[in-house]
């Protein structure tokens, strides 16, 4: 019978260790050390005993180096300074670009006349596959027989999606209100791994599902929550931040969601549904990308059977042009 693994490890380690012999330059007897300077551990040119303290405030005890805490202070301060500089630069360069497009977009939103957000009229329903369909109640001109459906694939942690929403949410809401098309949001969780909690995209998707499921029939609630969730200001500049469940619920409350919906977010009632729908949406999006020559990414806009470029300012027109 073979000896067990632990026993074999012991004998292997002992056998290996025995191959190491005393290094040649080390004297065999302690008596051969004549002075501290001859100590094998002392490298030439590093006088330590009796040296002056390097900085005021450090211990003057000869031979004692400043404690680890102080020794690491300088690199830590340097790192903090670098982070502060990078953060400032990022805040001044990145933020305006996102905010600017939100308020004044030279493209699709330039000619809008209304001051009432068209999204205030929109309702939401959840379809069997977890897609969230924007609809209208009385007040809009849509009759429920819109010509085409536009699928918008988004991940709540995707900065491009934030920008996309900031740029186009008005035009999207107008189109839905006027019955030009139906919008179906299909949420993904491909960026879960980049969040600190590891599942922010899924949690955000679950929160959107909860609000759509519970408060979808109340005009304006879901669109407002969705818009807030994708507002870049909730995420620290530079790196995608994330919200806690409670913060998600607070955001829903601010958008007008009911207490039941807020509770559902905190309780993660739709978490499993979010996982399922995100999985299905990913597979569908993957299939569509395989059929096209476009690189996989979010946001993705699908009209009819094909992908259209969401970064193209005229994507709505393109989305609505029937494929030839």
């Amino acid at each position, binding site marked *: 019978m073979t000896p067990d693994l632990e026993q074999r490890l012991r004998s*292997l*380690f002992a056998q290996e260790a025995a191959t190491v*012999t005393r290094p040649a330059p080390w004297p065999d007897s302690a008596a051969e050390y004549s002075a*501290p300077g001859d100590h*094998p*551990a002392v*490298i030439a040119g590093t006088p330590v005993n009796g040296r002056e303290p390097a900085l005021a405030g450090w211990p003057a005890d000869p*031979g004692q180096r400043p404690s680890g805490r102080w020794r690491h202070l300088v690199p830590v301060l340097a790192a903090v300074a670098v982070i502060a500089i990078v953060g400032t630069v990022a805040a001044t360069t990145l933020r305006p670009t996102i905010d600017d497009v939100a308020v004044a977009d030279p493209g699709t939103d330039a000619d809008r006349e209304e001051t009432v957000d068209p999204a205030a009229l929109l309702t939401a329903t959840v379809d069997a596959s977890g897609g969230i369909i924007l609809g209208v109640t009385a007040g809009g001109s849509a009759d429920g027989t819109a010509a085409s459906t536009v699928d918008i694939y988004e991940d709540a942690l995707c900065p491009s999606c934030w920008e996309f929403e900031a740029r186009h949410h008005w035009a999207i809401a107008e189109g839905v209100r006027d019955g030009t098309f139906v919008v179906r949001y299909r949420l993904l969780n491909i960026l879960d791994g980049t969040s600190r909690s590891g599942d922010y995209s899924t949690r955000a998707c679950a929160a959107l599902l909860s609000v759509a499921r519970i408060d979808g029939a109340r005009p304006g609630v879901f669109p407002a929550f969705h818009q807030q969730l994708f507002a870049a200001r909730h995420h620290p500049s530079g790196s995608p931040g994330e919200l806690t469940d409670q913060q998600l619920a607070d955001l829903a409350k601010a958008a007008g969601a009911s207490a039941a919906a807020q509770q559902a977010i905190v309780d993660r009632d739709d978490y499993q549904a979010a996982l399922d729908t995100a999985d299905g949406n990913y597979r569908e999006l993957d299939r569509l990308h395989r059929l096209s020559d476009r690189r996989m990414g979010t946001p993705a806009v699908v009209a009819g059977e094909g992908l259209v470029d969401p970064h193209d300012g005229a994507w709505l027109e393109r989305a609505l042009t029937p494929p030839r």
Partner: protein
Amino acid sequence: MDTLTDVTDASASPGLPLSPSLRRRSGATHDAVSLTDFAHKHSLALTRYAFLLCGDQHRAEDLVQDAFLSLYRRFGETLPIAAPLAYARKTVTNRHLAWARTRSSGEIPVMEVPERPVTPHYDLQQEALRAALGELPDRQRAALVMRYFLDLPDREIAATLSCRRGTVRSLVSRALSALRADPSIEGAGYDA
């Protein structure tokens, strides 16, 4: 043979800025041990320990020299701490792990591993086990060496690796599982 397990052999001087694990042991006050004696007494055992960590005698000697140097720079010629051996072992371990983290830039991958000289004690099974140990993550291997070569209790291993005892158990357990799952190690499996 001198070993690395006599962690409480040395003196103590309470009040020095030490890690909690070292300070806890410094209950009694003894005469401070001289670094010279300490180095002479433990250099071989420390080098053997370092060799099992890194598999390279020259690097092992460097690691131990570095540990003695940092002891000297911190305390001078006398070591007023309760467990200088634990301190030195921790230094060796930390430096090895830090070096291992960065060595990917210095290591050159080859298509075929160069042949090793066959030792008189050549044993195919031991060789396979040795190779499998080399594949383990460094912290796992360090935990195995401390447990099965130094026979340290989990408490000491945890102090050396700066982790909790549960982490030590999980490191060892994962390492053993990996070795047992290795098909080249005959008879290591549970069903052997």
